[in-house]
């Protein structure tokens, strides 16, 4: 996974229905880049059978012990 560049950010904001100017897109790309970098080791590595609800299973399983 790579961080989106300003051009990609601009396109995504347009698709989202809240289009950003070029300068804003550059600012967004700089601002969220570190989150993409930080999550890169995880992105694309998760097994197919993993649902978001697994969080609740882990959270509540520990309570019963």
């Amino acid at each position, binding site marked *: 996974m790579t961080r989106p560049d300003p051009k990609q950010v601009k396109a995504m904001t347009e698709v989202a229905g809240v289009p950003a100017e070029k300068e804003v897109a550059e600012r967004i790309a700089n601002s969220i880049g570190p989150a993409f970098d930080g999550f890169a080791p995880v992105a694309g590595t998760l097994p197919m059978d993993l649902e978001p609800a697994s969080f609740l299973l882990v959270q509540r399983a*520990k309570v019963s012990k």
Partner: protein
Amino acid sequence: MSGEPALMSLVSIAKAIAAKKFSSREVTQSCLDRIAQWQPRVNAFMAIEADAALAAADAADAALAKGRNQGVLHGVPLAHKDMYYDAGKVVTCGSKIRRDFVATTTSTALQRLKDAGSVRLGSLQMVEFAYGPTGHNVHYGAVRNPWNVDCITGGSSSGSGSAVAARLTFAALGSDTGGSIRMPAHFCGVTGFKTTVGLISRAGAMPLSQSLDTVGPLAQTVEDCALLVGLMAGADPEDPTASTLPVPNYMAATTGSLKGLKIGVPTAFYVDDLDSEVARVLDETIVTLRQEGAEIVKVELPDQRQLTAACQIVLATEAAAFHKRWMIERPQDYGAQVLMRLQNGLAIPGVTYLEALRWRGPALAAYLAAVTGTDAVIAPVAPMPAVTIAESDVGNSRDAEAVIQRITKFTRPINYLGLPSLSIPAGFTKSGLPVGMQLIGRAFDEAGLVRIGAAFQRASDYHQRVPKAA
């Protein structure tokens, strides 16, 4: 009974009113006197409802005279972060957009405190839509730290931290999505309790991120927080995501000793890049916990930077989704900083957002495996004490963004994991600014944190210190 009632703890004043040692009117007037003294200096209140508060206090006194005690908070005046809906009241959410929004329902958390007999003093300031960590607010002015009014309170529960520290209210609701209870608690020198995600209903609380939002109190003491969490926790038909687990008696945990408990100290991340005075306070806190009987062990945690990144992805996406309509229709009515943060969520692909949610279970499992055998982990809330309002103002300082990133470094991983974290006053800097430490527990083990926090407060007096008005 003599002395200034407003200086007493929540639990103490509730007992004093019930025993008719103070009337609710005397107590409410004491808070109003302090508000009149402090509000011009700290800007902690959004609205002060003096006449209505005194009328409600009189009603509480009249009821008590007839032998009717409504609950454990009978006649106790409180004010809360201005994002908890209270039917018929304006709830601004710290924003221009909701400057005139009148709630038609009352939040479950607030209703449960009302049902216990509390009296409304007014509402407290906050960061616009709870989306910022410092306490700046372009619409209503920055909230100021009572220990040094040039410094930030932390956010987003800025008014809650400031008002409790200055003893303007006995406690205040905050909310914690990325650190918004713990940071004001740390910077303002009060106790703050970020609860397990799902422990307390979020019905009628302004949403920011449905996966991360938590309700919790700020107050003088751990005992105060334990009382309030016990009142608010538990199943709620209005919020199907709220836990249906039985609510423990948290107050019973306030008397336990630390003998036999193990407290973990991280070997990395939470101990890196600390200001020297925060590092000193961490060391001193560990010494105190050990003296009180706890065994201190080192814990090697999984990479917390990945948790921070996942938290940012989830928070930004969900916040943007909540605000999309107003981002289209009323972008000019947001403060520039808040709009910028909201815009960030527009550029996160749906697959990335869902990956961040899917990883939450394995990430929590890995964390729990790393802390196996411990009862809690202790860590600083932030690497530094309160910075100045000027140096953290993104509009005026080039370094502000870096300062803001550093402020939130130690809180966001815990929100992603959904764990409870109790922030306790643990020391002061040489210049007189408070420093807090967070005790991080297992999911739904708030009682374990209460036990440790209360024992620490029996052995220290940092939570009893009160800032002086100049």
